[in-house]
Every structure is written in C-alpha cells, then in structure tokens.
C-alpha cells in the first residue's frame, strides 16, 4: 500500500513537473514566434513598398497614362 502510494506520488510529481516544463517551453516558444512575427511583418510591409512591388500598380499606371 505504502509502495503504491509512493509510486503514485512520484508519477504525479513527474507529471506535474513535465506539464509545467512543457507550459514554460510553450510560453518561451510563443514569445520567440511573436518577436519573429514582428520582424517578418515589418519586412513584408517594407518589401510591399519597394519599387519592385510598386512596379505592378504605380509604374504600370504611370506608363499607361503616358501612352494615353
């Protein structure tokens, strides 16, 4: 009976520690993702304003207007 409760307690302890570790890992992982997201979003934003990106909208219209 004592042995069983010892193992149950041990397993419960290991489960709690593993769960907590997992949650901490997920938290830090999410934090990293958010930082990366910021960089990626900013890059996307800047790339969308580059002359190459504007080729299809602004430049095309400019040349069309000149033709007209």
């Amino acid at each position, binding site marked *: 009976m004592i042995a069983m409760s010892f193992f149950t307690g041990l397993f419960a302890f290991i489960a709690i520690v593993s769960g907590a570790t997992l949650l901490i890992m997920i938290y830090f992982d999410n934090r990293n993702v958010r930082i990366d997201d910021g960089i990626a979003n900013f890059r*996307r*934003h800047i790339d969308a304003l580059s002359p190459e*990106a504007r080729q299809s909208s*602004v430049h095309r219209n400019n040349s069309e*207007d000149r033709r007209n």
Partner: protein
Amino acid sequence: MARDLAIDLGTANTLVYMKGKGIVLNEPSVIAVNRQSGEVLATGHDAWDMIGRTPSYIVAVRPLRGGAITDFDITERMIRLLLQRVGVSRFTRPKVVICVPSAITEVERRAVTDATRRAGASDAQLIEQPMAAAIGANLPIDEPVGNMVIDIGGGTTETAVISLGGVVALEAIRVGSFDIDAAIQSYVRREHGVAIGERTAEEIKIQIGSAEPGPQDRSADIRGRDLVTGLPKTVRLTAEEVRFAIDEPVAAMVLSVKRCLAKAPPELAQDFLARGMYLVGGGGMLRGLAARIERETEVPVKMSPQPLEAVVLGAGHCIENYQALRGMFMGTSR
C-alpha cells in the same frame, strides 16, 4: 466577385482605382440634386457644368470642404453612385480604401467610413493622403532616408516627412486651392466692384495665377456682374494683381511647409537638401509655387510627374497589397 477599390475622395476631384485595373474614374467631386424631391440629377463633369447656372430647384454642390464631409447624405449618395458606375452591385461588396486628409477629426473619420459602408462597401479603411501620395509619387519610402512630400489639394495642404514606410513628421492646414479661388473672387469684388463665380476665379488662377513673378506674366479680361449697376462688366486683371490677391493663402501653404521642416529630426534634414521635396496635388500646379517654396525654405522642390493621380495610385498600391500594408491604414496598429 467585386474588385476592391481605392478612392481619392478629394474636395476638388474624385478618383477611383480598381484592383488589377488601375484608375477607372476621374471626375470633379460635385453632385447636382433636385432640392424639392431630393433626387440626384448629375454627378462629376455634368454636375460641374451646372455650378452657378442652376434654376432655384436644383443645387449643384461639393459635398466636401477642407477635405471633410459637410453633407453626410449627399456624400453617401455620391459614393454609392461612384461604386455603381465602376460596377459594384448590391450583391458584390468590395473592400474600399479611402484617402483622407491627415488632419481629419475622429468624427469626420467615422463619417467617411460610415458613408462608404452604407454606400455598399464590405470594409472601409482610411489612409492619410500624404502617405498615399508618397507611395504614388514613387518616393523611396522603403529606405531609411527622409522623403518629404507636399500635397496641396482643393481644401488642404499637407506636408509629411516619411521614412521606412511611416510618417516621421506631419503638418496639415485646411488651406487649399479653393482658398486661392476665393481670394481671387474677394479681390475682384473689393478692388474692381465686380462679382465673379468660383469657376471664373478658377479659370483666372489657371490662366494668369502665379506665386512668383516670371516671364509668363500676362493679363486677362474677365467678365462678371457690376456690383453697382448689376450689369455685365469686363475688367482687365494683371498677373501681379492676382499674385497680390492670393498671397495670403500661398503664404499659409509655405509656412506650413516650413513648420514641417522644423518638426523633422535633424538626421533627415540633410536628406531633404540632397533629394529635395516633392510637390503633388492639383494645387501644387500653381505657376511659381515650387519656386516660391524653394526660395523661402532653401530646399529644392520637385514636381511629381503625376501630381493629380499620385494619391489614388498610392492608395491603389495599398489595395493591391492589402494584407502587407494593413498597418498603414488609420486606426490600425503598425
């Protein structure tokens, strides 16, 4: 499926950009309404021809003044008609990006988005005119350098310093090319005792108006109504007189540019000296205005190749890259 739209809802002109197609509509922001029945009789060029020449039951109005909506119902009807004309139906509700002055208040901002949604848009986002103008004028705003854009519209003058895709400094005043027309009207009434309409005043501005003396200075005969006799009268107006008449609004525009320069971080000041400032908007086409700003600020001023379309082209680029450039819309987090 509706194609998303970008609209430059200006005090003077309205331009519409359709995703994947480019500019599909460009006409004056004027609407003619039957005062008794409330019916819309004409919009755009047709309504523009009616200004000052309508019988008492018709009113031809500009629903925007100083870049802001002055008549909500008429603006909503005008946007609804615009959307219909570019193929938007009751079943196709596009996303719409609208260019507005940066000095717009929260109430005015809501008036524009509500009018656009009620007119048939599924989503209405606003973008500041100087930012859209900088994109449309092909300025390298994706680089960490100072780009200065001066947008002179019908009702507003907005100057912005833009770097790395965002506004660094901004100065906006509710003085535009309509104030120049009003100053001409007022001068002719005061000095010559002749009443002229806003269309005549605009023609004078285009023909002989200037902000700096130049070799093209000449005079023009203008026709109006004598304030004493009530009879038609012709008077001769010189370029120098017009320059004197419009000096107040022109000085206000130049002062707002100077204030924006003063707000800009010193690191960017050297960029302006090297790259110059860019002038966009119909008001920027006033003869000698670029030279006057250049003289008073000692910074080179360049005219955008497409001053009238730059704003809508910039907003059009935002609608083409809606997700990536969402952060540029007013009221969204960057």
